[in-house]
């Protein structure tokens, strides 16, 4: 409330808002449930803690309790949580609804653990995560908050990553070409976010998938840069490993072009970022082994993404991307200077550059964000 009061006073002084309208706004805000995101955050934290507690209890494996009793108790708990989700939905208690929903989601995973323990199944963790994400996909869709879908996406993509590396039929394709798997998964995340946005609009699921896919894109850039710079083992390009990525990039490009929520300029920037992103996985195969090229490519992808996020009014994501651009720029500076950067003069220059960049960013952050937001519109 304090923040909005301050803003309203500022708007009244600037003659943007009448005193009557301001009073109306303040009355409306005062009637709303207080601090909803803080409350929801703590409720979800509580639910996650309870869920971890349930998993720990199961892990302790109380031998005194017969397996049938353990399973019965677990299914009673699961049913009670499901009833709790339904009840809070009917009553319109959104904070409690999210809390019970997350508890239900985590208890489903704990139940898979319990079944594994009772029947001594020797499966891998990714198999449990895959089974969990398949049966709780609907639960993630039911959520009105981004946390439950984000939790689901984390489980689902982690499961897919390890399935690609450990299953009998996928491991021969991806174990020596894991960048191809990383590429495919980040593109799949992006495609799912685009489809979700087109079909259901800007809801919690879209937000969760967008944040998840952006994190996957950034992690993929980090992986591919590290591999390119330090650890590239020339096993030759395996097109079979890259086929899923190529199919997904094609589908993602179609989704970008047919996106009605963005203008032509935004679509072109998205496509360019996509092409540069996919190209960065292929530089070693094309005989490009220059650190400067890798850095310029990464910086270009990050800059294009930052501009895109700014134009979509995703200010927080934009700021994170700008910070990453700054970090990558500093690394490039050290790469370009080489040994010179570690000399006395080099260190003074490096320190001064960091101080200058941080101060400049702090001072101009708002102006840069406003400028970037208008650039592609």
């Amino acid at each position, binding site marked *: 409330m304090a923040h909005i009061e301050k803003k309203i006073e500022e708007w009244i002084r600037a003659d943007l808002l009448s005193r009557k309208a301001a009073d109306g706004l303040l009355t409306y805000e005062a009637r709303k449930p207080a601090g909803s995101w803080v409350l929801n955050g703590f409720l979800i934290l509580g639910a996650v803690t309870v869920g971890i507690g349930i998993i720990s209890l199961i*892990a*302790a*494996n*109380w*031998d005194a309790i017969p397996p049938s009793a353990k*399973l019965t108790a677990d*299914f009673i708990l*699961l*049913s009670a949580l*499901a009833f709790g*989700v*339904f009840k809070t*939905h*009917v009553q319109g208690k959104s904070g409690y609804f999210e809390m019970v929903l997350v508890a*239900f989601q985590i208890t*489903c995973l704990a*139940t*898979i653990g319990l*079944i*594994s*323990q*009772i*029947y*001594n*199944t*020797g*499966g891998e963790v990714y198999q449990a995560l895959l*089974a969990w994400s398949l*049966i*709780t996909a*609907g*639960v993630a*869709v*039911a*959520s*009105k908050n981004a946390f439950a879908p984000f939790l689901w996406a984390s489980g689902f993509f982690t499961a897919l990553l390890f399935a690609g590396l*450990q*299953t*009998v039929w996928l*491991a*021969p394709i991806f174990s020596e070409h894991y960048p191809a798997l990383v590429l495919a998964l980040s593109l799949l995340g992006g495609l799912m976010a685009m489809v979700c946005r087109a079909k*259901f609009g800007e*809801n*919690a*699921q879209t937000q969760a998938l967008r944040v998840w896919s952006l994190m996957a894109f950034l992690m993929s850039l980090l992986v591919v840069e590290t591999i390119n710079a330090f650890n590239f083992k020339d096993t030759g390009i395996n097109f079979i490993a890259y086929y899923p990525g190529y199919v997904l990039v094609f589908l993602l490009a179609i989704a970008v072009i047919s996106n009605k929520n963005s203008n032509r300029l935004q679509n072109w920037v998205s496509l360019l970022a996509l092409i540069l992103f996919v190209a960065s996985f292929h530089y070693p195969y094309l005989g490009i082994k220059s650190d400067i090229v890798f850095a310029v490519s990464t910086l270009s992808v990050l800059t294009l993404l930052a501009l895109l996020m700014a134009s979509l009014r995703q200010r927080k994501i934009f700021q994170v991307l700008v910070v990453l651009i700054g970090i990558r720029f500093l690394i490039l500076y050290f790469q370009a200077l080489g040994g010179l950067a570690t000399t006395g003069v080099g260190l003074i220059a490096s320190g001064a550059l960091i101080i200058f960049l941080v101060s400049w960013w702090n001072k101009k952050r708002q102006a840069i964000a406003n400028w970037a937001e208008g650039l592609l519109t």
Partner: protein
Amino acid sequence: MIESNRKLIAVLVFPIVALMFLAGYKSYLVNTGSEVILPITGYDPRDLLSGHYLTYQVDYGVEEICNGRGKMLREGYVCLNPKKFSFSPINNCQQMIKGICKRRNRLDAGIERYYIPEDQAKDLDRKVRSGKASIVVSVHPSGTAQIKDLLIDGKPWRSSKNN
């Protein structure tokens, strides 16, 4: 986001039913297969006790398991009667266990882990190392194997835990 009550009930009931089915299927495997007792050994002394379960290698009594698989993961089949190993399903085999060859002489058939109570972990770890440990396995004609019990010196571990 789901607003309809019916759809919400469906997405909440589905995981419960799926998990009940999973538990029922595991119970079916344990109770309907043919029983076999297989000796076990700790293949890695540092990793025998991992959290709240014992990990071990099953001694199928068949030499040359998973040899010649190359670097790839491959499905492997052990026939217990008559004793034989193959990378493809074995015909005329009375009891066959299916698994994945992950390295030379190592077939993972999903029976290499036994969950144990936290307070008895160290005691059981010592007994498995020193005594003759074996597992009771339920084997299905499809090759799926499911652990039924852990034996220490031929007796269920629960009856031997106070010895």
